[in-house]
């Protein structure tokens, strides 16, 4: 008998492991991945074709400023979100002070305020003749805005502060989870070894939380990079703003594509930086469920101080802008009632978001299930490719989609004209299908991450049992994974839906003519300086944004059930 250890053909092991996904499942996944990658490829193609006459101009005047503004913004926002996010997370888990429980979830609230809405609110509030400065002047006895005014918020520092105070929850959430669950035993140990509060935080808790903070900070920075409204209104010329104005004002797709490609490089370095920052993650990810950290009681004085420190981000990032919106919306409502346009825009927003959500969830379910079936490097690579859209800023994605969609529309139109004598016009770009495509490509990872996390709670023996009882892979998905994964699937749907509702940059570029969503309406009002007219739309978006936060907030309170775990997993899904 032969004694050499023979390893037969590896084909099967690479593509699918038996039990197994048939080629069909993998083929669909490959198609999805290709559709997600298409805009990036088209972008590269266009950028390389070049815009001969524009490139020197871009290189001399646009790119240096875009690069400088973007990097300064990222650095500022990065420092701010890490400080505020991990600091408040530590205070809330490590110490007992008045209002701790409420602040524990209230610190998540700024997540409901999109960057363009916080800028929108503060621009009006901070306006030299706005309520805040007028009140201050009266208080200080000045009568003329020329005699006393606060520094102009339309600046880099204003942008950093505003973005930082709405984006810090991306760091707060994972850092708090880590402090609560993983670090408690070690922090208890360091206390018994005589470490004071500062050594506990800087010597143990912070290094332990580094991977979680890196993940959260990179998500916050991607949001900052993706932002269009805030940067534009505040006069910061980031990549996103440059791409948008190159396309809208100069109608140069190649020029926009070239900036977009540079921006994509920045995003990739950001991801690389994040990977580097959470190297050696393993030591933080102990599976053992440790006891929760017992918070240290504070004296009345320092308790109040800590409460004030923790309340400040909530105040700046949520209460002030949301309060402003409520007041303005109420004023607007009394003045004009619920206008027809708002109703139509709400309908548009909900419709397009719902369509994209259903499509994205179905595809995400397919991806997650195929990954479970196949469990091979190939399937894994496909799913990772299909998840890349989340890292691509909306503007970049939209610019990348413009050309292939126009090509496709022209193809269909000419074919239909030739065959039936009937012009189809802009079939995809004109119908909102393009927008839905962009939403799906961008938010697919939110769904597949959440659903994968939900599936990980279903033991593999369930699949095996169902298969051995004669159910095909498809029937197993329908009878076992759909019902058992339902909480995670529903949570994923909610997250995708709200992300679609809030989306601005891709919506601005890809929406059909005369198709307004709440976000684009708000952008239009802000561009005209008629802030109060956009208050109702902004309030509706913030209210929708509160829904997933209710879900997330409960993750921190006691045992996380499947949908909440799914929601938590979907947030840091890149």
């Amino acid at each position, binding site marked *: 008998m032969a004694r050499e250890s023979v390893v*037969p053909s590896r084909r*099967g092991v690479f593509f699918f492991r038996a*039990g197994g996904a048939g080629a069909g499942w993998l083929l669909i996944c490959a198609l999805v991945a290709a559709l997600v990658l298409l805009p990036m490829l088209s972008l590269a193609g266009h950028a390389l074709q070049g815009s001969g006459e524009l490139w020197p101009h871009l290189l001399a005047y646009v790119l240096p400023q875009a690069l400088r503004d973007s990097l300064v913004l990222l650095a500022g926002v990065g420092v701010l979100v890490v400080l505020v996010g991990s600091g408040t997370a530590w205070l809330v888990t490590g110490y007992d002070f008045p209002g701790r429980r409420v602040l524990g979830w209230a610190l998540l609230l700024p997540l409901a305020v999109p960057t363009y809405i916080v800028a929108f609110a503060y621009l009006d509030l901070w306006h030299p003749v706005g309520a805040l400065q007028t009140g201050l002047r009266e208080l200080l006895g000045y009568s003329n805005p020329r005699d006393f005014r606060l520094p102009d918020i339309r600046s880099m520092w204003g942008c950093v502060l505003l973005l930082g105070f709405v984006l810090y929850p991306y760091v707060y959430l994972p850092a708090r989870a880590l402090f609560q669950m993983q670090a408690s035993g070690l922090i208890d140990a360091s206390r018994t070894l005589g470490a004071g509060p500062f050594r506990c935080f800087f010597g143990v808790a912070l290094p332990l939380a580094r991977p979680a903070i890196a993940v959260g900070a990179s998500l916050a920075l991607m949001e900052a990079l993706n932002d269009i409204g805030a940067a534009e209104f505040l006069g910061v010329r980031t990549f996103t703003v440059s791409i948008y104005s190159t396309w809208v004002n100069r109608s140069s797709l190649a020029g926009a594509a070239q900036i977009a490609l540079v921006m994509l490089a920045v995003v990739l370095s950001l991801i690389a930086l994040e990977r580097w920052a959470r190297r050696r993650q393993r030591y933080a990810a102990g599976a053992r469920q440790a006891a929760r950290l017992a918070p240290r009681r504070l004296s009345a004085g320092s308790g109040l101080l800590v409460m004030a420190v923790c309340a400040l981000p909530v105040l700046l990032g949520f209460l002030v802008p949301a309060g402003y919106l409520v007041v303005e919306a109420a004023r607007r409502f009394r003045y004009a009632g619920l206008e027809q346009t708002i109703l139509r825009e709400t309908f548009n927003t909900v419709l397009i978001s719902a369509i994209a959500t259903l499509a994205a969830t179905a595809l995400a379910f397919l991806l997650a299930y195929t990954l479970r079936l196949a469990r091979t490097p190939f399937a894994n690579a496909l799913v990772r490719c299909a998840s890349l859209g989340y890292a691509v800023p909306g503007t970049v994605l939209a610019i990348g989609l413009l050309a292939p969609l126009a090509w496709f529309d022209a193809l269909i139109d000419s074919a239909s004209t030739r065959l039936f004598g009937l012009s189809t016009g802009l079939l995809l770009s004109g119908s909102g299908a393009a927008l839905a495509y962009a939403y799906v490509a961008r938010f697919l990872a939110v769904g597949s991450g959440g659903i994968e996390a939900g599936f990980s709670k279903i*033991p593999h*023996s369930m699949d095996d*049992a169902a298969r*051995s009882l004669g159910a095909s892979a498809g*029937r197993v998905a329908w009878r076992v994974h759909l019902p058992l994964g339902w909480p995670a699937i529903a949570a994923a749907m909610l997250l995708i839906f709200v992300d679609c509702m809030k989306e601005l940059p891709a919506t601005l570029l890809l929406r059909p003519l005369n198709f307004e969503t709440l976000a684009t309406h708000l952008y239009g009002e802000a561009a005209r300086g008629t802030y109060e007219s956009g208050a109702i739309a902004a309030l509706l978006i913030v209210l929708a944004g509160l829904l997933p936060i209710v879900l997330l907030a409960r993750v921190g309170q006691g045992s996380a059930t499947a949908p909440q775990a799914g929601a938590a997993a979907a947030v840091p899904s890149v």
Partner: protein
Amino acid sequence: MNMPDLPFSARPSSATARAGDGYRLAADGLWHSFGDAGVLRDVSLSLAPGEILCLVGPSGCGKSTLLRLLAGLEQVQRGSIALDGEVIADARRHVLPEKRGVGMVFQDFALFPHLSLVDNVAFGLAGRPAAQRRARALEMLARVGLAERAQDAPHALSGGQQQRVALARALAPQPRLMLLDEPFSNLDVRLRHHLRAETRHLLKEGGVASVMVTHDPDEAMFMADRIALMRAGRILQAGSPAELYRQPATPFAAEFFGEVNRYRGSVRGGRVATPLGEIAAPGLAEGAPAEVLLRPEAIHPLAAGAPGGFVAEVVEAHMLGAYSQLTLALPDGRGGTVCWQAQMPSAACPAASGHLPVGLYPDGVFVFPPEAEA
């Protein structure tokens, strides 16, 4: 003691049996590896209709992988598997698990938590009219004594009840072959003993050919018509429980199924001298070293002054109920002493620190060449 060639095939008789010669299951020359780690090395086995085969071995010996290959949950890399003479898996062909008609009981039972018991049992009966499915599911639940709990959710059941439902669910579609993956390992000892008798009864009643994986030699000897002992991806020996216990082919097999005392000697005149007399050493060369393994129950007490006896000193004695465990010191004939474990009926057992005349039953003594350890 004869020493058959390694590796053993688990075939009951000759290795000439071809796929289909009356066997329910015939696996031939299976090799398997995950990455660079070889998991199975040339494993062949066959199963007659209605026969229960137990795969035993230490963890990591490949027994679970073998079971997953039979179920179709892993793809065969080399070798073939035939069911009723029809090849269902080889390097090119792979009949999907759902098309094999093979039932499986899992270590964690894998009951669907969102389905009631009756729906769990009816899961594998798709394609029949609803009424018929339900009737069959209820019949199976009745057979495991859980008919009145048909509408309950799985989590409302105890571990033993869940195991019964898992068995009923796997049996309901009348599979051609039943696979059981450590089905009792999540249960406590008493329940395990009770359920293995019940399970064997159900399998035998239905006449289902079964392959069960376990790491517990007692369980294997209780459940199996035939046992295949695996180690490092090979089947070392296959045979009836009695054969494996009484005629182990290797020291590993001897030790796996029961305690042994070890003694090293050398062959003189075809025999090895031990502290309890000379043992025949067939097949070993004159002067070669030999490894002698003695089962504790092969050492038995003799009446004082009986012929052929040896006097042992009792170092320790523990009464364990019907049987007692003794540590005996014996002169090794080279000027030293050896300490051996012995097991004998408590009725015949002396008090500690006395002298005891003992003899040896030859069928509990095995002689191997020392390198047979590999």
